[in-house]
């Protein structure tokens, strides 16, 4: 009887050790969010917030901007207010011009263990006409520290 209980304990210990590494445990909780912002001779500043909760331990943030007129600056800050990135896209033509040109700018970054709270994308346009797509992918990946970011993104 004593041996039996030892065997059971060992079996449970083995199961508990294997379980987190099994394919079952690799299942991810996902939450994708896409926002599309159309700008037409826009000069008003705006903010887009991406809320990260404790349920997720991975964040992929893609910001794609295509401009036909004017200019725009985009700044990304984490919930602590630290700037994580910034980029601008400018065209040679203002809204009064009949000529347009297309300029693209993209910002794509991935974060393991992103800070919980509101990640803020600040948009500062000047007579801007175009589109901004913000795609945020949040996941919970068990044992994320064992996986390279590139593998998760892929």
């Amino acid at each position, binding site marked *: 009887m004593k041996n039996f209980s030892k065997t059971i304990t060992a079996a449970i210990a083995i199961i508990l050790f294997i379980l987190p590494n099994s394919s079952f445990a690799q299942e991810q909780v996902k939450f994708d969010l896409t926002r599309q912002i159309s700008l037409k001779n826009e000069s008003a500043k705006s903010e887009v917030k991406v809320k990260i909760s404790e349920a997720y331990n991975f964040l992929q943030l*893609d910001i794609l901007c295509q401009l036909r007129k004017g*200019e725009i600056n985009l700044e990304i800050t984490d919930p602590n207010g*630290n*700037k994580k*990135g*910034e*980029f*601008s*896209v*400018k*065209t*040679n033509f203002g809204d009064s011009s009949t000529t347009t*040109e*297309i*300029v*693209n*700018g*993209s*910002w*794509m*970054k*991935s*974060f*393991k*263990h992103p*800070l919980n709270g509101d990640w803020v994308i600040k948009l500062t346009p000047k007579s801007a006409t175009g589109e901004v797509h913000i795609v945020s992918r949040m996941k919970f990946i068990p044992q994320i*520290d064992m996986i390279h*970011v*590139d593998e998760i*993104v892929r």
Partner: protein
Amino acid sequence: MSTKSSVKLVKYFISAFLLSWACSFSGSTGCAALPQQKGIHGEIELDTTVWAPVAYLSIVPDFTQKYTMSYQTIIERVKIDESGSFQFSSQTLPEKEHLYRIHFSKKGDPPASMIIGGKDENHFFLIANPESEINIQVKTGPRLINKLVIKANTPNQSLLKINEVAGFLDTLDYYGSSVNRDFVRQAVNDQLRVIADSSHNPLVCLYALYQMDMETDIKLNQEFYHDFLKRWSKEDSEYFKVFRTNFPEYKRLNLLFPLIIGIGLIITLVIILLIFRSRRLAKESLYSSLSVQERKVFQLLKEGKSNKEISEDCAISISTVKSHVNNIFSKLNISSRKDVMDYPK
């Protein structure tokens, strides 16, 4: 091992690793010097099914525009030949050293396309002037710019090393806890400041500093930035002018100097005017000491009349005229008829 000691160990290893990089800044170029031609030569194994075989060279007018994409800043576009080679002529570049960005665009995308981050990051930076001899090798892999090799060009090799050091900031997510992240961030920022402090190239120094969240770093390391500004106080490039705008007190100091000069000039002018005025008043008060007859004689002297003419005009004897003239000279503290002519009244 406790968490505290493991944090220390991580910090120690990172510092040692980064320091070994930073130490190589003082002299070695890392690659053997090769005979080269002036210009920017490059090689890239481009997947032409995805990427257009064109390389674009843009000027970065200041570091705040490092990630600004526009057609205005693209100064040259060259075709990438079948062997993957491309070449920009450095002769058309501005005389002074500038920061440049080379980028590639995907097929179907506009030429002015910038991708920051991810496997498709499509650009890199370099420092050049018309005399530059730059040889770049872009090695592709899982990423478009998987590895960048720049041969025998010290400032640009420094940029690569800075990129490697700053790359640690992107791998911060390997260190789970926020305490560990802060330690790593601090270690990386310390090394970037060491590079900025030790490099002799002003653009390399700024490139290192702009890799950080500078706004936060300035608040934490005021003494370093104070010394840095002092060291490069004579640097008048646009890069430094824009960099100095991060320091309002420096701006105030810069405004204070011309203000002091201006105030000094105004005070000097006022003093000179006051001196002239007081002299004029002194002369007027001397003039008022003359008698009615003497004033009349004085006016006639000013008109250049002789003693005889004055005697006739005033109906007085010549000896009386002489006496008035002597009194005038004595009271006005002058010694000749010419002095009378020059006298303000």
